[in-house]
């Protein structure tokens, strides 16, 4: 049993009168595969935003490798090994797929401030970006401007950019969102190929995907953890079923 790499204690946040996070606790250890599910508006994306620092918590503590990070800036959290993908594609649409990854690599490698004398370093970034595309099976799209890419490949690019940061903790916010079910296997495969040692929190509405991927599932309802456990227990839990019954799936 290793120590948790990410540990969340009593994390709370209200948007006005709306409680979107109510004293959430969570531990992620290296290699963990945790699924975070819950109805629309439960606060799943907000939870990711709280972890990455895009949204400031009202209360609570976030420890990354034992260090409190709740008061440091988002970009520093990224540099300490916390990466995320977005539920809605957040890409540089006028740049090529390769450049989208290369700027992330440049940032990670500390080259992103270079203004002069950068040929060799940028070359390295581009080559690494290209090999990441190849690993994802989309080597051919390197030169394509992102706005011309099909949606599914943009979803893969979201994951590739996060991986370019070499994170130790990866937060995936509905990687399959909007991908037609006929193409969902491409996303599944990409998730399966993620390095075993990183800790992953997966938010997903596609139950097949979560239940296959996660070893542990957390159910969030109105900002609070309803229950948490092995996928089989969760699937059999009548309370969880009640929450999901009658919920529109799109």
């Amino acid at each position, binding site marked *: 049993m290793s120590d948790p790499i990410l540990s969340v204690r009593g994390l709370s946040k209200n948007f006005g009168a709306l409680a979107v996070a109510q004293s959430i606790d969570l531990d992620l250890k290296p290699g963990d595969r945790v699924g975070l599910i819950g109805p629309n508006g439960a606060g799943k994306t907000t939870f990711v935003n709280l972890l990455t620092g895009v949204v400031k918590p009202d209360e609570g503590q976030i420890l990354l490798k034992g260090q409190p990070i709740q008061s440091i800036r988002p970009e520093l959290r990224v540099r300490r090994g916390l990466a995320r993908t977005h539920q809605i594609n957040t890409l540089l649409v006028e740049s090529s797929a390769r*450049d989208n990854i290369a*700027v992330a690599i*440049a940032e990670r490698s500390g080259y992103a*401030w270079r203004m*002069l004398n950068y040929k060799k370093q940028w070359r390295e970034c581009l080559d690494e970006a290209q090999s990441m595309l190849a690993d994802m099976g989309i080597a051919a799209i390197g030169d394509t401007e992102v706005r011309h890419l099909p949606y599914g490949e943009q979803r893969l690019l979201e994951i590739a*950019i996060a991986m370019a940061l070499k994170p130790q903790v990866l937060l995936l916010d509905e990687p399959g969102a909007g991908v037609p079910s006929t193409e969902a296997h491409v996303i599944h495969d990409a998730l399966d190929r993620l390095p075993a040692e990183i800790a992953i929190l997966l938010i997903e509405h596609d139950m097949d995907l979560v239940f296959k991927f996660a070893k542990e599932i957390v159910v969030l309802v109105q900002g609070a953890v309803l229950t948490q456990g092995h996928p089989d227990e969760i699937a059999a839990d009548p309370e969880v079923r009640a929450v999901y019954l009658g919920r529109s799936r799109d």
Partner: protein
Amino acid sequence: MMNDPKNTAPAAGPQMLGGKFSLTWHLLPWVLAIIFYFTAEGYLSLGTQAIIWVLFTMSLDLALGYAGIVTLGHAALFGFGAYCAGIFSIHVTGDPLTGLLVATVLTAALGFVTGILILHTTGVTFLMLTLAILSMLFEFANSAKWLTGGDDGLQGMSIDPLLGVFEFDFFGHTAYLYSLAILFIWFVIAWQIVHSPFGKSVDGIRQSPKRMRAIGTPVWWRLVAIYTISSAMAGSAGGLLAHSTQFVGLSALSLFTSGIVAVMLILGGTKRIYGAFIGAVIYVFVQDYTAKLNPHLWEFIIGGLLIAVVLFLEGGLISLVDKARDGLARLVGKGERS
């Protein structure tokens, strides 16, 4: 696996915005500028004005075009640089290079400080703050007569010979070559910057600050950095204006000046270093030529051109050069493209 040749990115992608610009095309504007010097006797001071506006437009391109910093206060930096150079030449030394360096550094400092203060805002708020800074500087220059000459303008400048040798002559030979040399230096710097990892990240911030934060970019600092560089360049342009005309007027600090430089940039094409060349040169020469025919004609012509470009020529006039270049390449059959 990293060195597997099939995983290696091709040399320069087409998205590099002219990264593969062949040497011939790179040389063209400079060769034209030199030819102009030898053939356009009598028009050299107009040529100098054009060069200065190119530099100023290029500085706006870094901020507005590449970084997406939508400012209406760029004249504040231009005018500030001009007054710095002018005042320095009166009270300290008339050596032009020292004066230009001082104007550049001080304007960079102004850009850095104001950038730190206002770059955390966006949109209309930011726009208003840039306007506020511009009008404050304008009012200061207007009222501090003892320093700036107020609305009479700054007079009594005298500029020493360049490098101690070349007098600033009445026909403007020295001023022209001096400005051209400074433009060339800044051009090389700007070209390096926009193709650098730093330049890519700034371009990324323009497209999506949220994406850049998610990869760990210190967005605000990077904007402050590009804004400071842009300010330095605008300050240089202002300094050149002071040196070449040996006069600085309040109009350098006016909103109108901010407007003109924006028009030049949009005419020429944003996010293309050479767009500044085309936009500024066309503006200056069209204005000069048509103003001789009728004092208000140029406003119609420039206005019409601007509308035509915005409506029909995405990418500005430089996209016509791209087309010509592609056409030529096809004719020659080399298939060279960038």
